[in-house]
């Protein structure tokens, strides 16, 4: 805390003793900017895939379909039997018959919009939603066989699961990239700070010679680097967010992909990147400076 307040308090004198610029400075700013830029994209990717995976997984998890195929005169009775059976099965939260229109819509891609659904002896579909504890699938199958012989339980995760798995993998990849980017940024800032320190060894020697305390010297370097990392990361973040906002919208892709951007409060998330980068830079530079000073003669 004392360190941070020392960092923020305006000490122009201490600032000036470190040469203002040079390539390590530019390197720090640029590295922070580039890495923040990449991080925003990785974040966008993993959030979009996360949303996608959640949506698919949520749509699947705990739902199942019961398909009732029976002669037309028995089908309504069996449907009623299934529904009342489900109502008394522990672990099932709700159940509903899928109305014919919905079924038509599901079949449309295969048969076109003009499918004469009433004329077809299609199975009836009942959708059920699992409760918190889950239900006993095998027990349910047996009871169904007894009470509604034409009913078949299909937990149909098979059908959309591949998509959920794929989305999950994309999210993983996004998070992995984020971790890599964070690690690489930290390492690069540390190395840049060390490079700057060794380029400035003569400066440090002069300062020690005229009676500067280590803390004075450390503060000057840390301030420089923290501010550079902060401004670089801020620039990179803003640029990347503009880039993300300019990416083609995903609306025409229907429900499959939710778009690679952020949603709602998600837009605020990238703004944690500059402070994190600054904190990393602060810690890295401080450590590097203290280590450098320890290594010098007194």
């Amino acid at each position: 805390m004392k360190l941070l307040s020392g960092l923020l308090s305006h000490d122009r004198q201490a600032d000036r003793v470190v040469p203002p610029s040079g390539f390590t400075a530019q390197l720090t700013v640029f590295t922070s900017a580039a890495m923040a830029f990449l991080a925003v994209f990785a974040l966008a990717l993993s959030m979009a895939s996360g949303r996608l995976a959640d949506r698919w997984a949520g749509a699947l998890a705990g739902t199942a379909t019961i398909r009732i195929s029976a002669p037309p005169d028995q089908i309504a009775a069996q449907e009623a039997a299934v529904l009342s059976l489900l109502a008394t099965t522990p672990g099932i939260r709700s159940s509903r018959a899928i109305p014919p229109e919905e079924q038509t819509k599901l079949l449309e891609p295969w048969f076109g919009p003009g499918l004469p659904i009433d004329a077809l002896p299609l199975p009836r579909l009942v959708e059920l939603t699992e409760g918190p504890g889950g239900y006993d699938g095998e027990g349910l199958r047996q009871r169904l066989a007894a009470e509604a012989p034409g009913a078949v339980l299909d937990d149909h995760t098979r059908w959309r699961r591949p998509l959920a798995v794929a989305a999950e993998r994309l999210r993983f990849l996004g998070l992995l990239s984020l971790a890599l980017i964070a690690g690489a940024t930290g390492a690069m800032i540390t190395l840049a700070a060390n490079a700057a320190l060794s380029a400035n060894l003569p400066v440090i020697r002069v300062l020690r010679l005229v009676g500067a305390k280590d803390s004075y010297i450390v503060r000057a370097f840390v301030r420089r680097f923290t501010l550079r990392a902060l401004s670089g990361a801020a620039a990179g973040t803003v640029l990347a967010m503009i880039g993300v906002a300019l990416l083609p919208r995903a609306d025409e892709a229907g429900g499959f992909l939710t778009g690679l951007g952020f949603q709602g409060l998600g837009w605020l998330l990238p703004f944690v990147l500059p402070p994190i980068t600054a904190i990393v830079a602060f810690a890295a530079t401080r450590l590097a400076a203290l280590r450098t000073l320890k290594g010098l003669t007194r």
Partner: protein
Amino acid sequence: MIAFEGVAYNYGGGELLSDVSLRLAPGSFHFLTGPSGSGKTTLLKLAYGELLPTSGHVTLFDKTVRGMTRDDVALCRRRIGVVHQDCQFLDHLPLTTNVVLPLTVAGRSADAGNLTELLKWVGLGSLGSALPPSLSGGERQRAALARAIIMDPEVIIADEPTGNLDWEMSLRLLTLLVELNRMGKTILIATHDLNLIRQAKAQVSTRVLRIKDRRLQLAGADL
């Protein structure tokens, strides 16, 4: 102020200084001579705490150097003005800023009149805004001396401060040092310029130390 007691030093190889004992009393004026490579710079570095003796004790202002923290050493440096043999500056800051640096890092501000007068005395009056890399060799040495005395230190330690100066300018600086000594400052100067030592002897009472065969001797009549 500064005392050596049975000090020995080596850089990892053979012993460079052995059994050096020395007391710089307040207000004394010492010269240090010896052939090139005999250890003059090393002895000075021991005297302002940049090096720790391999054995024996160095005492700065009644504290032993070995027991000092890095911050203690920094505080001691504010009471000792040092002119390095290779004068180093902050190359990105103008001469005046460099000269007042000891005040800056101590959180004090400079007296502008004082600074102007000092720069004029060492012949740098017109170069206050020059950057150190554009100074000539002798100008750097004079700037380093100005930096060493700007904060009115109790001790002034200078390593070959006139190595790149013509005789006239050397005398001018000597006069300045003698003046400071008369004001009570303790002064220790390493030099190989015997003329300078002779000249000083004519003005104040000085003692001349010589490093010979790793020992510190008092040189006298042979100068």
